[in-house]
């Protein structure tokens, strides 16, 4: 009886440490995941704003229209990085 109880306790302890191990390794990789998520949007926003500035410099009378479209494009491109940030929070803290 006591041996069975000991085995159960040991199994519970092992299960707990496995869950802990998993969350610890997830927290360790959270920063890496967020870093990877920033790469694409960073390149994208840089290219987008650069091209928009060029368009505005070439045709200043179209600047308002280009600016609106630029903000739209930034909003869509940035969404991926922000989803990466939310995943970082989920991995790290939840």
């Amino acid at each position, binding site marked *: 009886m006591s041996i069975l109880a000991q085995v159960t306790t040991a199994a519970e302890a092992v299960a707990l440490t496995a869950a802990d191990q998993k969350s610890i390794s997830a927290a360790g990789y959270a920063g890496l995941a967020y870093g990877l998520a920033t790469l694409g949007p960073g390149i994208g926003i840089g290219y987008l704003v650069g091209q928009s500035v060029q368009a505005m410099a070439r045709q200043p009378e179209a600047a*308002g*229209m280009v600016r*609106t479209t630029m*903000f*739209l494009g*930034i*909003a*869509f491109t*940035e*969404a991926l990085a*922000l*989803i990466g*940030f*939310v995943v970082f*929070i989920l991995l*790290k*803290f939840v």
Partner: protein
Amino acid sequence: MIFGLEFPPIENLVEWPNIFGPADSWYGFNKIALINLIALVGTTVLFLVAGRKKTLEPATNAPKGSRNLVESAVAFIRDGIIIETIGPAGLRYLPFLASLFFFILITNIFEVIPFFHMPGNARMAGPAVLALLTWAYFIAVGIKHQGLKYFWNSVAPPGVPKALLPLVVPIELLSTFIVRPFSLAVRLFANMLAGHILLVTFSVLCITLWGASLLLVVLPFSFVMLVGLTGFEIMVAFLQAYIFTILASVYIGSSMHAEH
């Protein structure tokens, strides 16, 4: 704990105890609810006060005071957002978009207001409700303008070859009715939460350095960074309100006519 810097757990940054009402009750009232209430009442009072003044400056024939502020803001939403994205036909949606803009702007700006220091949109509930509202609004506009054919027009744009329909319909269905509200909500929420965590990080750094003896020389740099980031967050609060409103405007405009 990194180099003696003790960062508070994330629950301490975003979860606030109830001002009144027991915890987990439906009528509990905390700081986020207070910020939302201030944004609601503040917007209403501002517009009522601005609309009440009928006088113009005699010399320049220009509005003054709060009416000047509100008129320039509404003109910005009209000319910078609606005319640019929908055109003159979208002017009837000005009240909805203006209230959306002002509500998001005021809840966001509490991020840098002393004694609050918490953006109301850094909890997922606020952005989710606003995004669902926008979602229901653009679907309603689509049904009003195109009837029930709106749903077919929005998932299968006219002019797409028949053979491509099995590929296009699921993608458009997903991107129009699921990704749109999700990305609206997550964009606002994640931007405000990230800004809040950034400000907390530098505040905690400043407080920790204040007690350090040798590292005190780093404190001015950290403090300058904190002040600079506060200015940056004011800009982000404006920009997120602008982007949310312009995306809502684009979505409403796209459901007024079938894509071509």
